[in-house]
């Protein structure tokens, strides 16, 4: 009986991610915060498709008569993970370029554009 544990885990993931985004001063930690939120949302999508006592939705050699978990949220999560890879790669390469130009990755020093 899994009850609402996954949904609580989702709330904790997203809460931690938002906490790191708002309070942490290091750019790498902000990239980690985004990955945390992304994992939380992916976990949320996966638990939506959960059916009690069901098996992974693989059609080949599947035992007939066995209930299957919903396949669509898993496809959505897969696309979200692919996008997550691209986003994280982009953010980390930008952090490297900022370090190259600014010499620092502290948030309160990387703010020449303000006002």
């Amino acid at each position, binding site marked *: 009986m899994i009850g609402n544990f996954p949904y609580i885990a989702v709330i904790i993931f997203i809460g931690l991610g938002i906490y790191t985004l708002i309070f942490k001063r290091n750019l790498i930690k902000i990239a980690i915060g985004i990955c945390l939120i992304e994992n939380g949302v992916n976990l949320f999508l996966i638990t939506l498709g959960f059916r009690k006592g069901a098996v992974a939705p*693989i*059609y*080949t050699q599947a035992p007939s008569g066995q209930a299957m978990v919903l396949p669509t949220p898993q496809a959505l999560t897969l696309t979200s993970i692919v996008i997550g890879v691209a986003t994280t790669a982009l953010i980390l390469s930008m952090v490297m370029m900022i370090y190259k130009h600014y010499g620092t990755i502290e948030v309160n020093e990387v703010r020449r554009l303000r006002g």
Partner: protein
Amino acid sequence: MKEMSKIVRNVTNLVYGFIIIFGFYIIAHGHLTPGGGFQGGAVVASAFALLLISYGQLKAKKFLNINIFSLLESCGLTMFIVVAFLGLGTTFFYNFLANSGSWFGHMVIPGINPGDMNTAGVLPLMNIAVGLEVFAGLGIIVLLMADGAEFTKKKENS
């Protein structure tokens, strides 16, 4: 980056061939077993990352440089879109090979069925195109990150 120890380099020489074959297995059987273009491409790209870390740099291997990867990536992407365009007879992304008896299209009954390599029509072609594109793309990312790390290390030392 300097080279890792001899043990690591030897283990890498032994292992990276199998990783690449396993990656291609995942790409090719995308429509049967869990996996597909992206996951298989990521496994193959992990083999390049292993090589890069153990040997410190890939320049020694002539064919593993940025231009080859970017060319492969463009070919993979173009192949994906062209295969999607071929379905334009009825609609974009139409699976014109399925149940058509030709190359990938064995007859298949809907619902639970054993299925083999060529029952999914256009899907294996799409998986191969995406796999090609992803392992080239991730290869470029790994190489550029390595160059970036090299640059920042030099900057810190000086």
